[in-house]
């Protein structure tokens, strides 16, 4: 009992995730259609950026290439988070159907079970659109490459994924209170993702402060991109702030943990 290694402890999750992945690939046509669908979603989102720059040369201090970088970084982080924990969105359905109780009787933590209850491989479609745009943006942009740049990009993708995952988890915790009002949390999960794709300079200051310090999605793409591209920052985006992305992720997870704890404490079971 005392000598359970980490590998052994993680084994159930590995088995679960592998089975979810296998299950999705059983119906080949469905799986391919789903992937094509998420490619479409990614392309439609990118079309929006492209159409705007068809009309203007600069938006919020960014040219098309820089806007592509912001778009790619936020989409990459969002689709990764969506793949790992996006299905927490389904929680209101589980709560209404009384299926959460079934999770409680199993010998693994609730959140870990819900997170591994699915692994939405179809999100690979949107992920690949983001990767292509990222590659194009990084080659087209005039970047002064250094180990620090590479480190910043990796750090940004990891922290960005953590930030969006935290938002999904916080939203999940709040679902225990909302149930019918599930859509409330879309305001900061999907709304946050939409805001993260933009140059933060398009927002008036109160909104910028909101997207930086309350729901920290500005850290997902815009703030690091300004540092990567060595653009002149402004009063709300000094270059050093780019390195604070992990801090923002930590804070987001702190709040997410709190929301989740409050939610699960509040939950009284489905009765019976």
């Amino acid at each position, binding site marked *: 009992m005392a000598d359970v290694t980490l590998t052994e402890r993680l084994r159930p999750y590995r088995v679960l995730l592998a089975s979810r992945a296998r299950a999705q690939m059983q119906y080949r046509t*469905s799986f391919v*259609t*789903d992937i*094509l*669908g998420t490619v*479409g*979603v990614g*392309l*439609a989102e990118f*079309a*929006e950026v492209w*159409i*705007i720059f*068809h*009309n*203007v*040369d*600069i*938006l*919020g201090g960014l040219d098309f290439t820089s806007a592509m970088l912001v778009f790619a970084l936020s989409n990459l982080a969002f689709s990764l988070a969506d793949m790992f924990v996006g299905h927490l969105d389904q929680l209101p359905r589980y709560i209404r159907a009384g299926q959460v109780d079934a999770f409680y009787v199993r010998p693994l933590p609730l959140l870990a079970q819900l997170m591994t209850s699915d692994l939405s491989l179809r999100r690979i479609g949107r992920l690949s659109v983001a990767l292509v745009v990222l590659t194009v943006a990084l080659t087209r942009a005039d970047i002064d490459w250094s180990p620090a740049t590479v480190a910043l990009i990796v750090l940004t993708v990891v922290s960005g994924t953590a930030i969006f995952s935290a938002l999904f988890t916080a939203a999940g915790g709040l679902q225990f209170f*909302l149930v*019918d*009002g*599930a*859509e*409330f949390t*879309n*305001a*900061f999960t*999907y*709304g946050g993702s*939409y*805001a993260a794709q*933009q*140059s933060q*300079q*398009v*927002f*008036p200051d109160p*909104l910028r402060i909101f997207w930086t310090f309350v729901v920290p999605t500005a850290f997902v793409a815009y703030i690091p991109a300004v540092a990567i591209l060595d653009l002149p920052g402004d009063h709300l985006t000094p270059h050093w702030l780019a390195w604070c992305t992990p801090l923002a992720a930590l804070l987001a997870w702190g709040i997410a943990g709190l929301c989740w704890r409050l939610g699960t404490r509040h939950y009284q079971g489905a009765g019976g």
Partner: protein
Amino acid sequence: MVHDVRHVPNVPLLPGAVLLGSVPLCARARPTVVKTFWLLVRAGFRRHSTYRLALLAGMTTNSVFGFIRASILLAALASAGTSIGGYDAPTAIAFVWWGQALLGTVNLWGFAEVKDRVRTGDIAVDFLRPIDPQLAYLAGDLGRAGINLIGRGLPAILLGALLFDMAPPPSAVSWAAGAVSVLLAVVVAFAGNFVINLLAFWLVEIRGITLLWMITGGLLCGLYLPVPWFPDWLRTVAHWSPFPSMLQNPIDILAGRVVGTDIASAVAVQVFWALALLGLGQLVLRAGRRRLEVQGG
């Protein structure tokens, strides 16, 4: 036993069946189609007004997106230094907030109810009812649209008008034509989605088609950006599709970008698509009915 639905007598529609009914039933006049339709509209309204918290939640999310979209459009206009595609700042704001207000009213994302009923075979019950299934579902959708317009749309538009410098509809004609145009937009979106749902008669899984419809529709209806901002070729594609009739046309009338005789042509295009898609729905429904086989009974 396998039972072809065509041969099930449509009981209440047969005069003989009414004569066989009990006397009090005979004495009461059979409701007209208009009356039934209106009752179904009200039922749809009540059904969707039950979830008040969901309406409030939808409104909140729509408003957050409204703030983001308004910021983007204003920044683009500021960068261009002039109006783009006929939109200046107040009309662009009106474009955004009318769009957010109508988002819940017009069923852009579609519905799965009819598809599920086709798959389970419950659609056979709909065929037995004394009102055409397409008409019945349209009535329900109009009711849903009504409560969403009041519960989600009006608060969003008020918020936009309070917090931004938003162009009001320029005249009484714009208000009236705008209202008609919104109604037509609801019908066009419903009729299109109804056809997509009916494809379940032939396909096991229509998820891919639904998704394709949602993606193209979302882009071409003018939800994210106004259609006049598109590059020429994409604008042409949009104009040949039914999607602008679902959102762009009513928004343009209400925002005052389209005025005068152009209002008539915008509404005429919507009428065309409403009739075309409803007609197509009838054809597909009939073909599906011939194809349908229901087990048992």
